[in-house]
């Protein structure tokens, strides 16, 4: 029987990262922030119960939403920090040329780096499960909902990771790559919303009560925050509000009804494009390189 072939880069990265204290410290900070916020909301729910004598289930849902959003924001900060130094770090350490002179293809380097970053972040997500489980004390959210959300957070990790790696492949210095990765993620998460907002306001100035910006609204397909919002609203039974909101700004009806699936497909395609571009960027014989002479 053939042995399972593990990407050597992935194996090495995992070995190096588990020996480093960075991941442990990151996990600690991540969970402290998440637990602090979770416990704060939890105690406020308990306080309300104490005063009113009854449990408002909408507040447990808000605990769930808040925890997911906080986790999303934390991941948006952590993933670029982990991935933006993957390739540029090899370049700065002057180990990239050695790697590229071996049989290790650029695609295996990229996939190994991405997978090891994803594994680290999955560890973070799994480690946050006890905090997320606070929701089960009150009920109202199913295990399936949480699993779907966790899977979506992992998908967002891959998305942010692909952006981080593309920036790392593009820029020589890790600092520049990190800034570019944060900039790109901020643009996708907040910038696109801001852009759509401005276009809607502009449209409503020209035609009062009209905020249809047509196909420009489709830029939101790239926004993972909007997709997460759609997922959460679906889980809490407010998907129709979300869909009508999208239709108001000009998203075609079919797309607004299936926003989550369509946006996920678009984002997967974007991830693939980023990864292919990163591989090409790394391949020394497919681009005009610069080097010492």
């Amino acid at each position, binding site marked *: 029987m053939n*042995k399972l*072939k593990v990407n*050597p880069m992935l*194996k*090495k990265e995992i*070995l*190096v990262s588990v*020996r*480093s204290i960075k991941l442990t410290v990151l996990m600690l900070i991540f969970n402290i922030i998440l637990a602090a916020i979770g416990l704060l909301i939890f105690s406020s729910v308990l306080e309300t119960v104490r005063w009113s004598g009854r449990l408002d289930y909408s507040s447990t849902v808000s605990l769930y939403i808040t925890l997911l959003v906080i986790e999303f924001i934390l991941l948006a900060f952590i993933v670029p920090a982990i991935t933006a130094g993957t390739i540029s770090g090899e370049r*700065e*350490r*002057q*180990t990239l*040329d*050695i790697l*590229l*002179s*071996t*049989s*290790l*293809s650029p695609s295996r380097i990229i996939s190994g780096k991405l997978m090891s970053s994803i594994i680290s972040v999955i560890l973070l997500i799994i480690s946050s499960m006890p905090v997320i489980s606070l929701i089960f004390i009150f009920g109202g959210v199913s295990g399936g909902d949480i699993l779907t959300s966790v899977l979506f957070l992992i998908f967002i990790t891959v998305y942010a990771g692909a952006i981080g790696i593309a920036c790392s492949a593009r820029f020589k210095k890790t600092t520049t790559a990190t800034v570019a990765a944060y900039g790109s993620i901020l643009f996708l998460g907040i910038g696109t919303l801001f852009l759509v907002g401005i276009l809607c306001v502009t449209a409503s100035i020209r035609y009062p009560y009209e905020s249809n910006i047509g196909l420009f609204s489709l830029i939101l397909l790239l926004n993972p925050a909007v997709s997460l919002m759609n997922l959460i609203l679906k889980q809490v039974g407010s998907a129709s509000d979300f869909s009508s909101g999208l239709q108001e700004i000009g998203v075609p009806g079919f797309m607004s009804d299936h926003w989550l699936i369509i946006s996920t497909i678009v984002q997967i395609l974007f991830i693939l494009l980023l990864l292919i571009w990163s591989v090409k960027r790394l391949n*020394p*014989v*497919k*681009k*005009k*390189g*610069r*080097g*010492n*002479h």
Partner: protein
Amino acid sequence: MLRIQHLYKSYGNFTALNSLSLHVEKGELYGFVGANGAGKTTTMKIAAGLLLADHGEVYVGGIDVRKEPKKLKEKIGYMPDFFGVYDNLKAIEYMEFYASIYNINGKEARKLCLELMDLVNLQDKADRYVDSLSRGMKQRLCLARCLVNNPELLILDEPASGLDPNARFDMKEILKNLCEMGKTIIISSHILSELAEMCTSIGIIKNGEMVLSDSVEGIFSAITMANPVVIQVTEGMDQAANLIKEHPLTGQITIKEPTIKFEFRGEAQDEADLLKMLILQGVSVNGFKREEGNLESLFIELTRKGEKI
């Protein structure tokens, strides 16, 4: 083993390689010499498939570097002039990581890596973290790493740079051993005397052009011929100077009594004839010899030619 033909490479307006051609036969230890910025690293990077040439052909063991990069990488081991190591990785793990790239895993990888570490005298450092090793040890470890895929050609860019004399000696001995094992090695260095001691052939590059490429014997013969002849005259200084000036094989001449130093393009027999002629014309000569030269003097002469000093 390595055939480079009319290689061109430029970075913007700067021409790094200008029709560079180079041939390294199987089993040779080829020394690649040139000043900083002459084009050594660019040539080596192109040969290792790390850089694309603008024009020209590079073949390693008959493989076109541009067309078959995958096959190329199975045949070569490349060591850059500057390189780093990974933190939190032991020397043996560093080796095993590179072995796993070539699908050598488990016990087989451990055995091979220990053998290679033994070859570079690092067998007792297997469990040391790589970043705790000295520079010389790191260089040797990197050399051992180059050998995990049993390459036919080793491309070593300044492997002895920054090493102390003992570490340089060790490196030289290891390279000689590898050459005896049948490996073809191309090595760049600034320490010309060491290259002269261990290399079988040497190429000198200047401004991206190969100005001299020959066997070590051929180069030393050229060095001797390029050196000036120095004679000491006890009587008939003016006559000797005139005779030498008029000789068709004589070049630049410097007179500093009682010595005359002059470029002479003739062979040993021509030197003997010149000496005979001087004596027959009544010049009293008590010293006649070609100045001894070395690789450094040839290198300086070749690389400074045409430059304003």
